[in-house]
């Protein structure tokens, strides 16, 4: 708030301080303050203070200004009552304004604005009819030699020597109008209450009840007065009750302010907890924060959200997501609401991005597993095609050559050619067999990893110690990858670590196959160029596993692969996939 807009605030504060000071010190030339004076002044002071705070904190609401005015009017009335004479006449005329301001605040809480024509009519009537009537009464009473000049004319009117029909009539009218206004107010407040959302009722409730207190006291005493129940005791009780209830309203509003302050702390708290919060936890947190238990977070597909009950508001909070809530939160504290919505949007964005990344990752894993499976099936198909097709054809051809060879004498050139052709055919078959085995060893499919690795061990040109410990057979694709890890590592050892002892260990741990190939050769595998181990790394990763190569110079080489028992585990985050990114140096 800039200084110019603060000016009315300072003026109000100054007036209030001056009036309170005059009441409490009796300056100039007033009576010494009594206990009732002090209590009354403090009550009005509390209203002034609460009004100022509300004005500063919630400049959008009129309630702060009304509260300030209410406190000042209370002080004016009290001062008039203390001093008597003209001051009391001013105070007397301020009485209907005092109640009008309270009624205004009560009717229009929390924004301080009349919303319907009926509300505007009542507020307008309160501020006009009351002062006019009271002024008229004061003037009439003065003319009739009213003791108003010496104070307390309001309830001692019966003691006028000759009140006259005009004064008595006006006085009776005052009471009737007061009760009428009170009834009108009650009707409008009930109507307004019905329109309020649960969240608004929660905030407005204490204030309405608190303001209702003094009003009820006022109506009660107006009724007692009308019934001519008058005594100094009743007057005293009235004053005390009025002063005490005067505390309630500012206190209730202060409590409301304090609640707003807490809510701001809650927003900060929400922000702090956001990064660990799920969408499911966000809804109750927001509902608590915005004091709207019916609040919902809705995801919108295409068509806009259809606001079923007509009073819920849908506030967009991120891509395709709405906050469904009651308008009170928006009206009461826009910055708070904006902060809460921003916080919610952050969480939702976070959750959406996380879900997106997870879904993409799962899709990548799944497609990788599908690729591995497809490649595996393709290898199997080619291997079978080679076996059923080319190999059998070549063998058939060979047998034909044999038959031809049997039909020609040994020492002819035809026999020589046929023998050569047969020898070439044998070579072709051997090559085909090697090719076929490289694709996918038939034994692996038929007898599993143990049998296939024993063949690797037998064919190896370096001594291999082999231990295979598998309770069940892993996925075919996983078996193939494990097989080639061993085959490649053993072949590497044979090539680079001549004379070394190779140890192969294959064991199952829970859902994982651990393949370890160690040799005591020269090590330094990572410095050798070649695609063997790199290709292996890709194959292992594609099956959802991780390959580690440790090969310090002079310290032997260890190739270790951790593979999920089923390649599909990769898609659901199997143990292998956790370390799938650990890099293996390529030879």
């Amino acid at each position, binding site marked *: 708030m800039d200084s110019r807009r603060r000016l009315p605030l300072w003026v109000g504060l100054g007036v209030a301080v001056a009036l309170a000071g005059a009441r409490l010190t009796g300056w100039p030339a007033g009576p010494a303050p009594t206990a009732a004076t002090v209590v009354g002044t403090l009550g009005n002071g509390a209203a002034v203070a609460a009004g100022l705070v509300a004005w500063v904190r919630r400049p959008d609401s009129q309630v702060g200004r009304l509260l300030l005015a209410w406190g000042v009017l209370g002080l004016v009335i009290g001062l008039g009552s203390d001093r008597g004479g003209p001051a009391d006449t001013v105070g007397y005329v301020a009485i209907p304004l005092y109640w009008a301001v309270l009624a205004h605040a009560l009717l229009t809480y929390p924004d301080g604005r009349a919303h319907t024509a009926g509300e505007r009519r009542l507020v307008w009537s309160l501020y006009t009819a009351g002062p006019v009537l009271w002024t008229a009464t004061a003037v009439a009473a003065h003319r009739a030699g009213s003791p108003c000049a010496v104070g307390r004319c309001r309830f001692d009117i019966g003691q006028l020597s000759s009140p006259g029909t005009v004064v008595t009539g006006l006085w009776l009218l005052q009471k009737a109008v007061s009760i009428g206004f009170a009834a009108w107010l009650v009707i409008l407040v009930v109507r307004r209450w019905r329109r309020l959302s649960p969240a608004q009722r929660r905030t407005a409730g204490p204030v309405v009840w608190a303001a209702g207190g003094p009003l009820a006291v006022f109506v009660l005493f107006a009724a007692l007065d009308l019934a001519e129940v008058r005594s100094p005791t009743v007057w005293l009780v009235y004053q005390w009750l009025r002063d005490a209830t005067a505390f309630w309203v500012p206190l209730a509003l202060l409590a409301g302010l304090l609640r707003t302050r807490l809510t701001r702390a809650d927003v900060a708290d929400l922000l702090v907890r956001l990064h660990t919060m799920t969408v499911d936890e966000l809804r109750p947190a927001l509902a608590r924060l915005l004091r709207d238990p019916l609040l919902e977070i809705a995801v919108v597909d295409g068509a806009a959200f259809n606001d079923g009950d007509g009073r819920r508001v849908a506030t967009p909070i991120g891509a395709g997501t709405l906050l469904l809530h009651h308008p009170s939160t928006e009206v009461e504290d826009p910055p708070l609401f904006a902060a809460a919505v921003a916080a919610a949007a952050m969480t939702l964005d976070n959750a959406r991005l996380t879900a997106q990344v997870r879904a993409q990752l799962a899709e990548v894993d799944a497609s990788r597993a599908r690729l591995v499976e497809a490649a595996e099936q393709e290898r199997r198909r080619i291997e079978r095609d080679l076996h059923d097709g080319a190999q*059998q054809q070549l*063998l*058939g051809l060979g*047998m034909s050559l044999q038959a031809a060879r049997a039909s020609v004498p040994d020492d002819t050139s035809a026999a020589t050619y046929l023998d050569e052709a047969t020898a070439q*055919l044998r070579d072709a078959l051997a090559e085909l067999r090697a090719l076929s*085995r490289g694709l996918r060893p*038939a034994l692996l499919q038929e007898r599993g990893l143990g*049998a296939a690795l024993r063949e690797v*061990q037998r*064919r190896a040109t370096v001594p291999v110690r082999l231990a295979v410990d598998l309770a069940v057979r892993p996925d075919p694709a996983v078996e193939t990858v494990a097989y080639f890890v061993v085959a490649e590592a053993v072949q590497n050892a044979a090539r680079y670590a001549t004379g070394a002892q190779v140890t192969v260990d294959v064991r199952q741990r829970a859902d994982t196959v651990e393949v370890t190939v160690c040799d005591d050769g020269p090590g330094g595998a990572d410095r050798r160029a070649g695609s063997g181990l790199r290709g292996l790394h890709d194959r292992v990763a594609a099956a959802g596993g991780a390959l580690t190569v440790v090969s310090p110079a002079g310290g032997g080489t260890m190739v270790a692969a951790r593979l999920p028992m089923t390649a599909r585990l990769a898609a659901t985050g199997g143990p292998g996939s956790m370390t799938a990114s650990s890099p293996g140096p390529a030879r």
Partner: protein
Amino acid sequence: MSLRVVLVDDSLIIRAGLTRLLESEGLAVVAEAGDADAARRAVAHHAADVAIVDIRMPPTHTDEGVVAAQRIRRDYPHTAVLVLSQYVETDYALELLAGGSTHVGYLLKDRVLDRSTLLAAVWRVHAGEVVVDPVLVSALLDAPTAPSTLDRLSEREREVLTLMAEGLTDRGIAAQLHVSPKTVGSHVQHIFERLGIPDSPTDNRRVRAVLTYLQRP
């Protein structure tokens, strides 16, 4: 007398080639079959002397041949079985020889291009011997994992061990090495002692014993 042979292979080319080869040598191919069930029926119906069975057959194209061979040996003891395998697979050979089987053989499929070895194997299994492809035996002997105790054997003893592993009897070994069966017998005795293999000199169990010894890790 001519041997009555049943050919079991899902490849028509192989069956045709083998039929021509065997019949040119005076053997009678009495039936051909493309899978294990047809093989059993053919063996039963024709009271075949020898069944030549490919390891890979429908439906799974894995080890149907080994299973079929064992069934035939169990159910039709008068029918010898010669299994042909595309690859050297020691596990299958050992399975065939399980339980001291006789009248069985395990040859590489390439032997169809080597008519003398093939024919010899057919006759040997028919005679009740066990036949193991020499390629398989030499692979075992030359493997880096072969037991170091083999170094204790003399050159001649190694030759005898190899022929033992191929399933030859003492008489057969003697014929191969051009020595007397008695000499072979003493070599065999020596080998068993030096390697600590349980002695079962005359039974075909010894092939299995030797193979098991050779391929143990």
